[in-house]
């Protein structure tokens, strides 16, 4: 992990005395007197689901768009694209984040797990299996984000992180339906399949315990 990071930083920062990452400007048709803003390109070395990639990206590219448009990992979904719905949730270095609100260039050297990396048909992650068992979806669009988020929630609880509904801040929180609901509030389900989502996560939490 740390070696990857060192390599990627060298690659990313090697391009010029100013240490800015912009390494190239694609051709443009804007006239010289009134140039349009030019896209800036940078290289990102990143590990996704165990596979290393080194990719040139427009600096504006979000981690979400890198995953979907460049790596064709379309399991991660774009819902609101503003960090409000949670459909884009992925796990970066063990932490769940909204991939839509994070720039790909800021993740050089990181280790990203998407829904495809959690499990695939025939070898489902226990959380994926629990969602299938409990029918924890209707249309399914929010499901990859729900599952990535739920996997991380159980790890957060295992680590003892408090939530808004944790009664005693000095004690390890207990896995209760109330705790799970509060911790999953960043994942919206437009179909309203919350009852089955909650049941699936509780079931998966029980399997772990």
């Amino acid at each position, binding site marked *: 992990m740390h070696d990857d990071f060192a390599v990627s*930083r060298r690659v*990313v*920062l090697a391009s010029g005395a*100013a*240490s*800015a*990452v*912009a390494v190239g400007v694609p051709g443009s048709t804007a006239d010289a007197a009134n140039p349009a*803003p*030019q*896209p*800036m390109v*940078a290289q990102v070395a990143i590990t996704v689901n165990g596979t290393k990639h080194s990719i040139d990206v*427009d*600096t*504006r590219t*979000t981690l979400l768009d890198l995953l979907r448009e460049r790596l064709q990992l379309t399991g991660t979904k774009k819902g609101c*694209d*503003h*960090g409000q719905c*949670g459909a884009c*949730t992925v796990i970066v270095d063990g*932490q*769940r*984040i*909204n991939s839509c*609100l*994070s*720039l790909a*260039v*800021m993740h050089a050297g990181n280790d990203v797990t998407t829904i495809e990396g959690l499990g695939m048909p025939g070898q489902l992650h226990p959380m994926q299996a629990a969602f299938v068992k409990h029918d924890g979806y209707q249309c399914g669009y929010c499901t990859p984000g729900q599952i990535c*988020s739920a996997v*991380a*929630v159980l790890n*957060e609880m295992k*680590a*003892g*992180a*408090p*939530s*808004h509904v*944790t009664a*005693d*801040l*000095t004690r390890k929180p207990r896995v209760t339906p109330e705790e799970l*609901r*509060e*911790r*999953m*509030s*960043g*994942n919206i389900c437009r179909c309203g399949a919350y009852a089955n989502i909650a049941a699936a996560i509780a079931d998966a939490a029980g399997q772990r315990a």
Partner: protein
Amino acid sequence: MKPFTYQRATSAPDAAAVAARTPGARFIAGGTNLLDLMKLEIEAPAHLIDLQDLRLDRIQRTDDGGLRIGATVTNSALAADPTVRRDYGVLARAIVAGASGQLRNKATTAGNLLQRTRCPYFYDTNMPCNKRLPGSGCAAIGGFSRQLGIIGTSDACIATYPGDMGQALRVLDAVVETVNALGDVRSIPIADFHRLWGDTPHIETNLQAGELITAVTLPKPIGGTHIYRKVRDRASYAFALVSVAAVIQPDGTGRLSVGGIAPKPWRVAAADDALPGGARAAAALLLAGSRPTEDNKFKVTLVERTLAGVLADAQAGKGS
């Protein structure tokens, strides 16, 4: 989003120096607020200075028994820190009352202080907004203002500072540490960090151009019962209509800061002094001179009632 160049800073003074000499430069840490605004082109930095390599992500004891919180410590890490949970419960409570688990994993201590208002007219680029486009007017005044400010506002802007964490930092008398392009460090008491809008609502803090927050320090623990009570339109993942951060001592004295009502965490010395006399007296002093709109005058009552709830909880020993 407008194109921008990007670099990772290698030291805090260097980051400040680059920011001071680069037109349109902005620091980026978690990015959860800045990127959101960049997508809407409300923010359009020409250059981003990423702070992730500066090792500002540590929480350390200070020599005088307090705590030094690095600028890029995430909200999640800060709320989970054992010392914070034990000695500064109001801070842990305020943090976990805000945003979502995903956002708290990215959002940072300094970034949270610098987050911009959620006034819907600030976000709607079709509307006038003195904060977004100075001199264009304020669509919120006379518009839908249920969520907006009731005190410390101006004829130019009635937006609020939206944060939860800042309310706790205000009752804890936190100090913001910064460094500038020359390498000079400065300590800004949290009370002096955010500005009232006045005629310049686009200037939200007293930071100077290029000045970088390196840490937030807390004085040594003050004991008492720590409570953060947040009233909002849904039970989780919503901004406050009104929130109260409070530390109440066994003798009934205490401190309070109220969120959701003003351009900055709203704490008034006279209201603190009046706490032993109950919520009504303290709320009246806290809100002296308030100028609510027809839409948000309910907040005047809500502040008093939320505070009454806080004081009842403190009396019953319900707190951290």
